[in-house]
């Protein structure tokens, strides 16, 4: 939306004493007012406090969080097929190999997720 700063469009309302009085009174009341410098200091302090208590939302960290989230989803996703692989018809050595391989991959992924979070 185009939003240029404009002067009051007085043509939309007839200009009369009320218009001028209102404008004069409002301008006179606040024209010389400025916020105290403390306001910015307070904003900065609150942002600092927030950054200490909350995870940073910088671009790099955001990417890590997205990666960790995807990794977690993938880890959860492979749990279902791993159960299917525990087919009793498989030879016990083969089944053990599959179970150990999946356990190991789960352990590695779990450690990676913990490191990121």
């Amino acid at each position: 939306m185009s939003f240029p700063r404009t002067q009051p469009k007085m043509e939309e309302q007839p200009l009369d004493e009320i218009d001028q009085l209102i404008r004069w009174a409002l301008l006179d009341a606040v024209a010389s007012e400025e916020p105290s410098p403390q306001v910015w200091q307070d904003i900065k302090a609150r942002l600092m406090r927030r950054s200490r208590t909350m995870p940073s939302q910088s671009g790099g960290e955001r990417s890590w969080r997205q990666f960790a989230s995807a990794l977690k989803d993938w880890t959860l996703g492979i749990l279902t097929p791993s159960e299917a692989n525990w087919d009793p018809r498989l030879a016990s050595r083969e089944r053990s190999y599959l179970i150990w391989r999946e356990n190991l991959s789960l352990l590695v992924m779990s450690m990676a997720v913990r490191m990121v979070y």
Partner: protein
Amino acid sequence: MSLSEDGQLISQIRKGNILALEVLYEKYKGQVYRTALAITRDRVAAEDILQDCFLKVYTHVDKLDGSLPLSPWLYRVAVNLSYNWASASRRWLIPLEGVIDHLVAGTRTLPESTFERGEVQHVIQKAIASLSFEHRVVIVLFYLDGFSLNEIAYILDCPVGTVKSRLHYARQNLRRKLERDRHLSPEVVYEFS
């Protein structure tokens, strides 16, 4: 699309650059503070609103469109925060009768001295303050900030017709109350304009 100055600052804020936020703050602090002050008539509240506005810029920076100027969004936030403040403090119940009594009790001569001008100014401000929050906000955005009806409609997130209606009734209300007592004659206006 090339980013505006605000857009470049917003993209810096997204990277966590607080200095960019400070530049934006310096650019808009006066406008936002004076608008909040005109609406609330309370310096502490206006400073709190200003502070919360810029904390929201930082918090919601991912949702801001860098190709658009920031000021409409800032005004929208400032008005919403002012509304929250007014609702919480219930300071919108200044009886207009008191203002009128003050007008009637005052001198009927034109305000020539500084004291008299101050008196007239005080009376008009109290009359404006006696308006409902919705009417007062429209009056402030239209007369103080110089926004058009379309712009005010965007800030208040309501139809232009609603803004037009609120402005009309607010002016009519002020006119009726002030002119009825014939304390403020047209000459007063030209004195100050």
